[in-house]
């Protein structure tokens, strides 16, 4: 079995502030790992560092056995970033954004292939946005735009998915759909790393949970079954990257660890 992501003592320092303080994390092929923790604990930073998008200030990280700078098989990775909306100052259709997920599989100067078109159509269908394919993304709601980002990653047909809060601001019906999509991928042996605040319908899929607090890994193992404050209805996380004081304890997780 090969290893998709392998971080050893990963450190990230931004403007002199330690954001990740020596995290070890190995994700094997076919694993479904949830990254949990309070706002500002470094979840996004961790997954960005795993991908090499965020440079490390210490430690190492490997993508399928290679450091990000020497990694060449980028088509094996599908990344869904944490975004409030799909950016850009010029209109772009849902189909255009989803099709851009094929970029790692396309050769420079080559025309779009029929395989590209089929993968895009399948991805749109998977997230239930086929009928909106020709609409500008900016005309979609926040939750629908989140689904566009997921479809973009699906379109690339990668081996490993890295999803940063794919369920933020998404209604329960769509969360259920995402859970079904992911479980189909997992059955086909795909690897998934996902950041979440509330696992909701995704919970049965998770094979392992990693909990971060203030840039340190405080739990790595069985997914806690407890229902913490973060899973309570009405506790919505649709405001990423707000500077909030990090909570020192998560009542739910603490409880779960005691039980475990």
């Amino acid at each position, binding site marked *: 079995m090969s290893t998709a992501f392998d971080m050893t003592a990963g450190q990230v320092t931004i403007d002199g502030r330690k954001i990740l303080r020596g995290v070890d994390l190995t994700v094997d092929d076919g694993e479904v790992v949830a990254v949990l923790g309070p706002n500002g604990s470094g979840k996004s930073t961790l997954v*960005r560092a795993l*991908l*090499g*998008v965020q440079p490390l200030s210490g430690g190492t990280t490997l993508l399928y056995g290679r450091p990000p700078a020497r*990694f*060449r098989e*980028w*088509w094996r*990775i599908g*990344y869904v*970033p944490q*975004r409030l909306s*799909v*950016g*850009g*100052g*010029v*209109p*772009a*259709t849902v*189909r*255009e*954004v989803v099709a*851009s997920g094929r*970029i*790692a599989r*396309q050769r*420079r*100067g080559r025309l779009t292939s029929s395989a590209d078109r089929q993968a895009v159509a399948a991805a749109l269908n998977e997230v239930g946005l086929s009928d909106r394919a*020709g*609409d*500008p993304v900016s005309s979609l709601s926040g939750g629908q735009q989140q689904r566009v980002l997921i479809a*973009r990653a699906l379109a*690339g047909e990668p081996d490993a998915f*890295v999803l940063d809060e794919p369920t933020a601001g998404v209604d329960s019906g769509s969360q259920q759909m995402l859970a079904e999509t992911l479980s189909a991928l997992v059955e086909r042996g795909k690897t998934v790393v996902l950041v979440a605040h509330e696992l909701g319908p995704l919970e049965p899929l998770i094979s392992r949970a990693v909990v971060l607090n203030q840039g340190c890994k405080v739990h790595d193992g069985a997914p806690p079954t407890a229902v913490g404050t973060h899973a309570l209805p009405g506790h919505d996380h649709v405001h990423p990257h707000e500077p909030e004081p990090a909570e020192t304890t998560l009542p739910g997780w603490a409880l779960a660890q005691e039980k475990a």
Partner: protein
Amino acid sequence: MTIFDLDFMRYALVAAVMVGLTAPAVGTFIVQRRLALLGDGIGHVALTGVALGFLTGTAPVATAVVVAALGAVAIEMVRARGKTSGDVALALLFYGGLAGGVMIIYLTPGESTASLNSYLFGAITSVDATDLWVIAGLAVAVLALLAVFGRELFVLCQDEEVARASGLPVRFLGLLIAVIASVTVVVAMRAVGLLLVSALMVVPVATSQQLTRSFRTTMALSMVFGVLATVGGLTSSFYLDVPSGATIVLLALAGFAVALGIGRFVRRSRTGESTA
């Protein structure tokens, strides 16, 4: 007599078509990247390049390309480091470029700021056959680069982080778009002048956005609007005997106002249909 009977007008018209095609094509990516004012920043820096041309006795267009490209690379590097925001970096270059240009021209014997006028406000009717070849070559190069790298540039301008996680050469692409933009600025300088150059990169894009839904059609339509503005502006300035650069930009802005109205109307009737 028509404008086609005059050599200088024929050259000017060909130059106008080139500029009308390239500036909005590059502009679409720049606006997508939310750097609409990049062209202005580069234009101001290019002024220092023009003045350096006068000082050293070299062709101002050549020095302008070099200095503008260096400026654009500097903007991109400051932006990519992320310490200063992109717009602040641009602002710093605005001031430095303009002040540098004025100072250098003052120090050049026999020249005054009046020498800069045709570069500041454009002098498309002064384009000769040699200029035309240079302009055409640069325009073709710019369009060819956009065609080859367009797909990657779209991802970069849409979401830089995703571009990086797709293995794209993000730093190279960022520098590429910056250099393409600076070449375009210098090409368009002849038509509308450095102070108005950015208008041709931004206004046609803003105009077509009012009417389109996709990136591809926005780009194509903005090139149509760009050519309409440059050719229409040049022609009417000839018959009305008014400055060409200003006419081109005012025409482009008028087009924007019309498109804004049409876009509003179309959207309203569309929503009217769906609720009916």
